[in-house]
Each structure stands twice: as structure tokens, then as C-alpha cells.
């Protein structure tokens, strides 16, 4: 029996080959992702320069309410819920974490430790 026939006739070998193929695809994806991130590093530097020039302090992810658009710069209570994590007009406002530390402190940032 040739090696090829032995391989085809063995379901165990075929299963191992299928698993190895899947593992190889995972590795290729991981390597492609790493290469992609390396290639986009120059773009990131450019964006960082822009952020530094404009002195930006928030991501544009949630623009439906001011306290979601700039979570670190907003009032520590929301428009309708009166405190973070309360049922809110905006779904994203409902699941922003409540402030940690002393809520009565002058310097209050959600999730940040107090200086």
C-alpha cells in the first residue's frame, strides 16, 4: 500500500490533517494581522500627531450624547438617569460604568482612581 493510499484509508490521519490545516489558517491569520498592524504604524503616528495638534480627548464611537462622546470630559451624571448605569435614554448611557472612588471628590472621572 502506497503512502498516499494509507493516508486516504486512515480517517485518523485525515482528521489530523484537517486539524493541522485549521491550525495553519489560524497562524496565517495571526501573522497577517501582525503584519497589517506593523504596516499601519506610520498611519497611526500621523493620527497621533493630529490628536496632539488638536488636543483631542475622545473617540468618535458614541456621538448620541455628550457624556458618551467624551466620557472623561462630561458631567458625571447623565441627562435622564441622573447617575451612570441608571436606566437611560440612550442604551450606551445605561451601561457606562459608575464612578469608582469617592463620588464627592472634586476630580471625578469614571473608572479612574482619585489622585
Amino acid at each position, binding site marked *: 500500500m502506497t503512502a498516499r493510499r494509507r493516508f486516504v484509508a486512515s480517517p485518523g490521519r485525515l*482528521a489530523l490533517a484537517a486539524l493541522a490545516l485549521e491550525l495553519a489558517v489560524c497562524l496565517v491569520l495571526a501573522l497577517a*494581522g501582525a503584519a497589517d498592524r506593523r504596516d499601519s504604524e506610520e498611519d*497611526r503616528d500621523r493620527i497621533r500627531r493630529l490628536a496632539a495638534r488638536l488636543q483631542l*480627548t475622545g473617540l*468618535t464611537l458614541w456621538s448620541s450624547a455628550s457624556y458618551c462622546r467624551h466620557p472623561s*470630559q462630561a458631567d458625571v451624571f447623565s441627562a435622564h438617569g441622573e447617575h451612570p448605569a441608571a436606566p437611560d435614554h440612550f442604551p*450606551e448611557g445605561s451601561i457606562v460604568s459608575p464612578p469608582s472612588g469617592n463620588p464627592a471628590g472634586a476630580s471625578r*472621572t469614571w*473608572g479612574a482612581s482619585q*489622585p
Partner: protein
Amino acid sequence: MNHHLRILDAAVAGLLRCRTKTLVVVAVYSLLIALLASLLLYVKTLRGESQRLLATSPEIVVQRLRGGRHELVPVAWADAIRSIRGVGGVTPRVWGYVYDVPTGANLTFWGADSVPPDSLEIHDGETIGPDSPGTCMVGQGVADMRFLGVGDRLPLKAADGSLFAPRVIGIFTADSALLTNDLVVMSTADLRRLFGMAPEIATDLAVEVYNPAEVDTVARKIQDSWPDVRTVTRRQLLQTYDAVFDWRGGIWAALLLSTVLAFAVLVWDRATGLSAEEYRSIGILKAVGWTSREVLELKLFEGVIVSAASLLTGLIAAQLHLVVLDGVLFARVLRGWSVLFPAFETAPAIDAYTLMVCLPLAVIPYVVASVVPAWRASITDPDSIIRS
């Protein structure tokens, strides 16, 4: 080696005999792993981007509060803060929000005296200079939503009710959408006119500190000098984003984990009770001379093949879900009601954290559930198994 390969052959042949059951288990397990892995990777990407992109944000932002609400800051405070030892520079920032009625989007307006030219898409021959009056630069999301191109005008209603229509002289490149998607940048003077803000006040103050180790000290001195201000340091800003992503990711991970655990319990319940056919096949194997060790090896191979196939298929599906389908299954929930959500590309990634979360969930329950009942059956007398 050949001996183990033969047992592996028998294990795969056994799985193929009940191919519907095997396929359903692999498909459901893969789907759950794919959802969990793509959520972990999505949140990790967002957290990483926020840490990288906001690493150049101001060291300290000084905001004035009145009655717990944000209040505009006198620009004159900048000179007093500049005199604190260790402070490099203080820049009054003018920015705010405008609700755009035609699109239902909340736009962020930002005052700036200059913008790096390489961050803009501009037509040949165009000159940029936001300090030139009556011009603005918009993010990709604003341009798409309002059908704006370079040279078009963006009509706005100023604070005094008059029409103000700056000309668009540049559109921010799509790769900076995470920072600029809903942004409209114009000269500070134009923005003051739009918002009706006097020249002696600003939205807040951005403070540069020479030595990062002195940031907290400078922040404390500022708060001591003006009791009605709050300071937001860069560290706090980054921690805020960390907390928000942890919270959001945590909620969804908790929901998904409970689903995975429920499925694991189901599989366990199914696997711990061997069917009569499985019981008999173990008895026959023992009767024809298989040892208990070989029976256990057979069941171990079955469990490892199913769980490893589920794990790897799930990880590959997670990458496809994120990279090709842009995380369509949960992106809507993560977006909330944002009309202007930035299109940002997720590069494929398989990291140790995702593996360490998914591996035990996929492999351990199924392998244990396959081996333990088989061990109980394999130590029983084969004659009594076959007769029963």
C-alpha cells in the same frame, strides 16, 4: 506510534458513525467560541486603539464646574496656571456639540488654529488654513452624511440665529475616523461666533506638563487655587476608556459565558449518560481484547478531536466575523444609537488572552465528559456489559 494511530482511526470512525450528532456539537460549540472570541478581540482592539490614539492627549484638562455642571473657563486663568512650576504651556480649548437636525447626528465642533496637512484629503491646488475665516474641515462621517465634498458649504445656525455656512476645505482621511468621524474643525474665531462665546472665555484649558511625574502635583495645585474646577489628567482619561470597554465587554462576555456554560452542562449531561449502543460497543471492544487504557485513549481522542475542531473553527469564524463582516452580530449593540459610527478596520489577531479564555471552555468540558463515563464502563466486566 502505529498503535495510537489505529486507535485514532477507530475514534474518528466512531465519530463519523454518529455524524449528525458530531456535526451539531461542533457547529454549536464553534458558534459560541466564535462569538466569545470576536467579542474579546473587538473590545481588545478598541481598548488598544484608545490607548494608542489618545496617548498624545493633553496632560491635564482643566474644567470649571458650577452646580455640578460644566461651566466655561475664563481665558485669564491660563496665565496663572502657566506660572505654576513645571507647567509647559496652557491652551484654551474651544469646542462643543451641535445637533444636526437633517441627519439626527450630534456633531462635535472643534476650534483649531492649524491642522497637519497630511491628515486631510484635499484636492490639488486647494490650500488649507483653518485660521482663514469661513472655512472648515470635516470628518469622513460628516462628509458622507451631509454629502459634502471639498469646496461645498456646510450651512449652520449660529447662536444668534443667523446663518453661517463655512466652506469645506478638507476632509479628514478615513483612517483617522476613530478620532475625526463626527468632527467639524474650524478657526477658533469662527467657532466663538457660531457658539456665541466671548473671546475672554473658553470651553476648558489644556495644560502641558514638562515632567510626567509631576502631573498629579500640578493638578492638585490647580484644584487648590480654584476650588470650583476639576482636572482630568491623561492617565484618568485613558483609565476612563479602559473602564468603559471593560464594562461593556464584561457585560457581553458574562452573557456569552453563561450560554457557553449552559451548553457545556448540556453536553456533559448528554455525554455522562452513555447510550446503550455506546455501552455495548465498549463491552465488545473489551471482549475482543482492548484494555481499559486503550478504551480511554479512544474516548480521549474523540473528545480532543471534537473540541479542537470546535476551538479552531470558532477562532477562524471570529476573525471572519470581525474582518469581513465588521462584527455585525454585536456591532449594533456596541454602537448604541450613534448615527455616526466610525468605520474602523479590525486586523485579524489571535492572542494568548483569547486562547486562555476559549481553550478551557471548549476543550475541558467535552474531553472530561467523554472520558469519565467511558472509564466507568471500561472497568466493568465485558460479559455483563454485553448481556445488559
